[in-house]
Every structure is written in structure tokens, then in C-alpha cells.
């Protein structure tokens, strides 16, 4: 059985590996204070953003690349990366005013990725911000959202149009000093999405950002900021792809979420960056800092991620539970195959009273991949009656892969209840036999078992993404599964 699964996994091709031939403008390779200033010039940054970049860059110079993660790779040469690359605008200088002004080549790219920007605008109930290399190329449904008072645009636009909100929250959850890649991102971030949900508003649409890396030798450094004011709700989805290349490309993003009193943010990711070929050549280095803060009482932040791509993943979406009665959730499915390495998990920092958190992590490792769960649950002395439940299950397919679990439980309050469970399993011959005896073929049986294994996570995804995630998993495991 394992042979069939294995075969199908290694033979899978990456569907989104094409490259768009489009005229782009980019900066020379390398990183220096001049480049940071150049990015600020290019984007017409107000002084507070420029200052933030310079401070971050200077701090970054003092830091060393972290080595504690359970991944191994050749060191990244930060001077070999282009820090800015953007499709050339036809009008020159100005960005596209509306979707009609977007280069048809770009629209075609997003069509091919299954994200038809113009069509989407009319047909479905999801507003999309499409980010291509370093810039946002278009955001749909803006009028409809504006009517509800929701601001959904690229971070660049937000910095120009709503500087007061950006200044208040930028770097408030992930300060530029946070870690090596967060500092790098703070210095050179180019675009990303910005969401602001005003008091009491339930966002009428699901918001979505689609990230695409296209140009060669570039890194993508986007920064997303979501602010949900008192009593508001938003569901945000994120998807990513990149062309197939022999070289490794760096993606170092920062995502900051702020939930005020009784607000709820649901953040879902389907990550499908190019993972490299069978020999582990090429692929994206996905070094991402994602963190949310439940600032107000009764607020809630929920992270759901389906990680199926990237040569190396280094990602820990976290929640700081500061408000009393606030809740944090983390649901994750991480699938690694070939020579992929994933070190992913979460941090739940309990500060407020009666805070609760829940962690469900499912890791599937195949071939020669490494799949590591690393999670921290920290209960501060102030967190009376905090409650945490963690469950981390691993499934191994084949005998050359690795599944590791590193939970850190730090409890400084006696009223806390913290539980952690982890199991490791493989698809057993008994299970397959049972299903075959019921007339289900082997592929169908494996597929069913995998779906069952991941069900707890998939059911938390918004419908559109749930379908996409299942498809993605099936595609990765096609041949024997589904």
C-alpha cells in the first residue's frame, strides 16, 4: 500500500508552476540602507513608515539567522535577492485605478490560477486582493465593502489614505525587533493587505488575498494588517503559489491581527508555494511571522492553515490572549512530501483571566520529508482559570520520513488547566482491509482515512477554501488517494 501512495506522491506535478512573461521593473540585487530608502521612495512612504524601515534594518544588521528550527538548508544570501519587483504599469507611475486598467496578461495569470479577478467581482461573494511579486495589482468589491464601512485595500493604499490607523497598529503585534525575519520584513516590506472593520460591523463578504511570486531572484516580503474594532467580525483567506524554479526563493511575510473587545477574526491560509522537485531542488523558503492579539475582552482569533507547499516552512501563527475571556484557536494540516521540511506550530500566550485556547495540529509526512510541530502554551500568573487543549497527531507514509513534536508548556498559575496529547500512526493494513471488504478500493480507502484524519481542521475552513484544501490534498496524493 505504502508503495502506491509513495509512487503517486513523487509523480505529482505542481500545477501552478508556470511563469508569466510580463514586463517588470525591479531593483538591483542586494540589501543596504540605500535599498531600504529606495523602497520607501518608490512607495512614497510617509516619514513614520520610512523611520520604521530604517530602524528595523539597523536592528536586523545586529541579528543572527536563527538555527533552532528543525530544518536544514544552505544559508540564504541576502545580497542575492531583489527586494522589489513589480509588473510595469501601462500608465506609467500610477497604479491601476480600477480592474479594467490591469494588464490583461496579469488578469490572465490570475485566471490560470483559478482566481478570475474581474469575473470574481461579479459572481462570488468573496472580495479579493491580488498581490503579484511586490505589489498589489487589484482589489475587488471595494465599493460594496466601503458601503459597510469596511476598508479592504493594499497596505500601500492604506498607508496613503489611512495613515493614522496604520501608524497606530503597524508593528504593535509583531514589533520590528521580534525576530530575524520580522526585522527583515519590517525593513523591506513592499505590499500586502490591509483590513479595517469598524465597530459593530460584521463584514458582509469573506475577504481574501492571493499571493503570487513570479519574477526570478526576488523575495516576497508582504505585510498584512487586520484590525477588528469592538464587536466586529471578519473572515479572511489567504492563498499562495509560485513558479517552478531551480533556485530557492525567500518569502518572509508578517501578519498582524488586532481584535478589540468582542471582535472576532478568522484567518485561513491555504499555502501552496512551489515546494521544489523530487531531489529537493528549488522551492520557496517560507519564513513567516504571524501573530494576533486579543486586545479586548471576549475577543477571539482563529488561525486555520493548510500547508502543502514550500521547500522549507518556518511558521508559528500565534495568539496573545490579553483580554479577559478571550479565545485563541489554531487548526493546522501540514503535508510534506519529497524533501520538504516543515517546522510549524503555534504559540498561545495567556495573559488575561478566563482565557482559553485550542490547538489541533495534523501532520502528514511522506517520502523523505521532515514534519515538525513546535508549539508553546504559556500561562502567565495573571491568567486565572486559563484553559488550553492541544492535540498533535502525526501520520507517516513511508519509512524515510520524519515526524517530530516539540510542545513547550509553561504554566505559572495554579488555576490553569493545560492538556497536551500527541499520537503517531500510519495507515494500518487492518483499516485498509476492512474498507476493501466493504467494497471500497484501496485508493478510496486511503483517501477516506486521510480525510478522516484531517476532518477536525477542514471543517473549520470557510466553504470555498475547504473545497480547495481538499482538492489540494487530493492533488498532492493523487493516483492512490481520491
Amino acid at each position, binding site marked *: 500500500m*505504502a508503495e502506491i501512495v509513495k509512487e503517486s506522491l513523487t509523480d505529482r506535478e505542481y500545477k501552478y508552476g508556470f511563469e508569466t512573461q510580463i514586463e517588470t521593473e525591479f531593483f538591483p540585487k542586494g540589501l543596504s540602507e540605500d535599498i531600504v530608502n529606495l523602497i520607501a521612495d518608490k512607495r512614497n512612504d510617509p516619514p513614520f513608515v520610512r523611520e520604521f524601515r530604517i530602524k528595523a534594518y539597523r536592528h536586523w544588521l545586529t541579528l543572527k539567522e536563527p538555527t*533552532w528550527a528543525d530544518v536544514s538548508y544552505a544559508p540564504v544570501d541576502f545580497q542575492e535577492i531583489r527586494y522589489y519587483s513589480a509588473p510595469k504599469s501601462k500608465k506609467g507611475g500610477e497604479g491601476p485605478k480600477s480592474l479594467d486598467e490591469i494588464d490583461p496578461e496579469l488578469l490572465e495569470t490570475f485566471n490560470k490560477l483559478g482566481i478570475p479577478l474581474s469575473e470574481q467581482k461579479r459572481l462570488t461573494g468573496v472580495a479579493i486582493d491580488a498581490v503579484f511579486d511586490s505589489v498589489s495589482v487589484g482589489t475587488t468589491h471595494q465599493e460594496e465593502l466601503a458601503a459597510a464601512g469596511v476598508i479592504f485595500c493594499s497596505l500601500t493604499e492604506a498607508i496613503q489614505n489611512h495613515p493614522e490607523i496604520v501608524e497606530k497598529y503597524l508593528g504593535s503585534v509583531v514589533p520590528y525587533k521580534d525576530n530575524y525575519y520580522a526585522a527583515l520584513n519590517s525593513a523591506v516590506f513592499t505590499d500586502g493587505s490591509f483590513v479595517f472593520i469598524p465597530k459593530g460591523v460584521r463584514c458582509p463578504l469573506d475577504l481574501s488575498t492571493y499571493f503570487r511570486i513570479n519574477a526570478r531572484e526576488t523575495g516576497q516580503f508582504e505585510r498584512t494588517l487586520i484590525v477588528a474594532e469592538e464587536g466586529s467580525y471578519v473572515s479572511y483567506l489567504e492563498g499562495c503559489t509560485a513558479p517552478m524554479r531551480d533556485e530557492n526563493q525567500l518569502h518572509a511575510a508578517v501578519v498582524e491581527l488586532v481584535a478589540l473587545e468582542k471582535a472576532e477574526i478568522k484567518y485561513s491560509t491555504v499555502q501552496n508555494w512551489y515546494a521544489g522537485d523530487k531531489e529537493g531542488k528549488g522551492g520557496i523558503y517560507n519564513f513567516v511571522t504571524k501573530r494576533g492579539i486579543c486586545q479586548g475582552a471576549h475577543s477571539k482569533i482563529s488561525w486555520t492553515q493548510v500547508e502543502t507547499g514550500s521547500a522549507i516552512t518556518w511558521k508559528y501563527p500565534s495568539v496573545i490572549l490579553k483580554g479577559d475571556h478571550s479565545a485563541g484557536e489554531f487548526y493546522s494540516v501540514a503535508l510534506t512530501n519529497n524533501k520538504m521540511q516543515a517546522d510549524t506550530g503555534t504559540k498561545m500566550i495567556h495573559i488575561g483571566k478566563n482565557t482559553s485556547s485550542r490547538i489541533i495540529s495534523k501532520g502528514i509526512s511522506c517520502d523523505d520529508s521532515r514534519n515538525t510541530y513546535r508549539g508553546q502554551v504559556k500561562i502567565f*500568573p495573571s491568567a486565572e482559570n486559563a484553559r488550553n487543549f492541544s492535540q498533535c497527531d*502525526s501520520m*507517516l*507514509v*513511508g*519509512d*524515510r*520520513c*520524519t*515526524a*517530530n*513534536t*516539540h*510542545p*513547550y*508548556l*509553561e*504554566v*505559572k*498559575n*495554579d*488555576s*490553569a*488547566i*493545560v*492538556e*497536551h*496529547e*500527541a*499520537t*503517531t*500512526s*500510519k495507515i494500518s493494513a487492518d483499516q485498509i482491509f476492512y474498507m476493501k471488504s466493504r467494497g471500497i478500493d484501496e485508493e478510496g480507502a486511503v483517501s477516506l482515512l486521510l480525510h478522516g484524519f484531517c476532518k477536525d481542521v477542514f471543517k473549520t475552513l470557510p466553504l470555498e477554501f475547504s473545497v480547495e484544501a481538499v482538492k489540494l490534498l487530493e492533488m498532492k496524493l493523487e493516483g492512490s488517494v481520491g
Partner: protein
Amino acid sequence: MTTFSTVQSIEQAWDQRRRSQTDEPRQVTERRERSVRKILADGLPTTRHEEWKYTSLRPLLEKGFVLNGSVKSNAVHPDVDRLVQSKKQAYSLVLVFIDGCLDQDLSDKSALAAIGFKTLSQAESEYDADWWDAWQSAPGMTGLFAAMNAGFARNGAVFKIKKNQIVDKPLHILHIATPGSSSEVSATRLVFALEDGAKLRVVEEFIAIGSTTSGWSNGLTQFKLGALADCGYYRIVSAPDLFHTGSVSVVLDRGSCFETFSLLAGCRLARVNVDVKYTAPDAECIINGLYLTRHNEHVDHHTCVDHQVGYCRTHQLYKGILNDESRAVFNGKIFIRKDAQKTEAYQTSKNLLLSKAAEIDAKPQLEIDADDVKASHGAAIGSVDPLELFYLQSRCIGRAEAMAMLCRGFADDVVMRLKDDSAKRLLNARVADWFAQEVRRAGASS
């Protein structure tokens, strides 16, 4: 006289030792030097090191323990004799160390000879270099305190249990710290080589005379089990002001069975490392532990089980009860290597926090490279259920007693799992002592 403060102090102490110990065989000195060099190369760990994230060496360094004090004649404390006699009544095989020095007069020499007993220095000169090198490369020997012991320990004992020899009485090793010991490191090394089919039970107990005796004992205990050998090792530390560091290293051969229990019921700062390695299939290891802490005690257990071959089984359960401002650390690692198919490994850590200021840092860790295995780990941290407490109180049981009763039940779960009856009785008595003190304390404060 050099006090333990920096890595340089270790180098200095080593130089002094080498100059003064000219009668030692050259290969022994060289072997010891290798361990010391390892420490010098690594430096002293800080809390930035993953292995030392939650335990700082600072309290130990601040005390300024003397690394290479003079070997002193056993200062006979009136209580020592009484204590040893009482132990002798209960156990027939007793080996006594006083402040780290082997006291042969108090030990049972003739009985010990039957189980291949040699003092460390005898064994160092009698057994050849290959024999010693194997012990030197055992798992966990690169750890700071294991290396310090291997480099500096002057006292110790080596046992060779012959093929199919069954030692039916438990061997009781007693480490007694007397009030005069406070400023020195007492490092003792114990080596147990069990040949095929041998069977042995060992109880190693660390106690202090006088409630404020605050020495530092740095023990190294090594086991190597031949095929089908069976060994039980029970470690008890109950000396509230003692600094205690210990390294236990175990190598298991085909079909052997090792059961160990670590009870920490009182010590100022403790760090116990247990390293187990399987070298052949079908071996089994049961690693259990219980830590009971109060005041500002800090206890740290690091265990590492390395499944290098398949068809072996590990069962691990550690429990802790923490009161006052005490802090406990549990880090359990289980490695299942590529070829270790059909491994079974289960690990559980459960902790009760009885006070607001107590802190627990648990890190159960699994690293699995083989697919056909059964492995799980779990950790739970919580407090006593108020409903259970209420129920007992409604039955006219005082709060302190009810509390102790519930905690006792929690602790008994792990103690009662012991296979060896005499060890179970002994550990049970120690746990009872701790709870009796707890109830007295609660009575005094209310």
C-alpha cells in the same frame, strides 16, 4: 582549592588535580582529561541553550562550591552510625558514602564482594582501557554534570554481576551529607555491568543529616545490561537544602528489562538526566518519576530515550506536585530512529499545581523517523478539583487533610506501578513522609 564559578575554574581545578595526583595510571588521567576538555570546549550552558532553557546554573555558581577539596577522613557524625544501623536492619546489602567518600567500614564488604564490587580507583587500574572507553561513550556522557563527574569523581564503586547471577536482596547505596560538607562538590560514580541473564535491584538514596546541610552532590550512575538481564534502579533524593545533580546512563541489550524510578522529595536545586539507549531488539524500559516540591525548590528532569533498533518498548510516566514558589521542569525526549520499526513508546507527564506562585515547564518531545511504530505522548497540568475537595470536606475531613489525600492519590498512581515490592514500600514511605510534613505545615499555618 578552586571554586566552581566559570569554565576557567574547571580548567584550573583540573590542572591542580593533574599535578597533585601523580600516582594515577596515565591512561586514567587521559580518559578523565577527555571529559574535562569536552566541558571546556562547550563552555557552561546558559538559559539560552535549549537543554537549559528553564534551569539556570546561577544558584549553583553563586554558592562557590570547591571543585577539588582535599580527601578528608570521614568526620563521624553521631547520627551517621545510627542511620546506617537502621538501614542495615532493613537491607542486608548496604554501601555508604559520607560526603562523597566511600566508607568501607560501614558497608558490608563480604556481601559486596559477591557481586563483583571494586572501588572506583581499584577498577580504574584493574580494568583495561577498552572496558572503560565503552562506559565513557555511553549515552548522556557529554552532558555537563556527567562529564564533570567523569573528570573529577574520586570516589565510587564498580559492580560486575556475573552471567545468570541473581542478586535477590536489593543493594542499598546511601549518600549521606553531613553538616561539614557544605562547601564541597561530592562527586561519586557508580558503574553496574550486568552480564547476560543477571538480575539486580539497586536503591540509591541521597539524604542529609541536619536540616540545613547544603552541600552539592553530583552523581553519575551507569548501567549496562547484557541479554535478558533484569535491573531495577530506584533513586531517592530527600534533603531540602541540598544541591543535587545526577546523570543516569543506561545501555540495554537484547531482551533486557530496566525499571527506574526517580523520586525527588526535597532539594534546593535538582537536575537529573536519564539517558537510555537500546542496542538490540526486544528490550524494555520503564522510566517513572515523581517530584514533590515546596518553598523555593527547583527540580528538573531531563530524560532521553534513544530507540536505535526496533521491537523495543518504553513506558514513561512522570508526575509532579508543586507547592509554594517551587518550580519544576520536565523534558522527555524519545527518539525513534530510521530502522527502529515496531517500536512502542509512550510518555506521559502530569502535574498538580497547589499554589499561585508555583511554576511548571513541561516539554514532552517525540522525534520519529520510522513509520511502523506506536508512539504517543501527553502532558497535563492542572490543580486539585474543588468539587473533589468539597466532597471530602463534606465528609468531615479537614481541608489540609483532604488536600493531602487527593494529592496522595495522584502520587500513588505512579508509585504503585513499581514492579519491585521492596522498592515500592520504601518509596511509599518517603512519599508518606513528605505528605505528613505537608499536613503539619498546613496545620501550623492555619
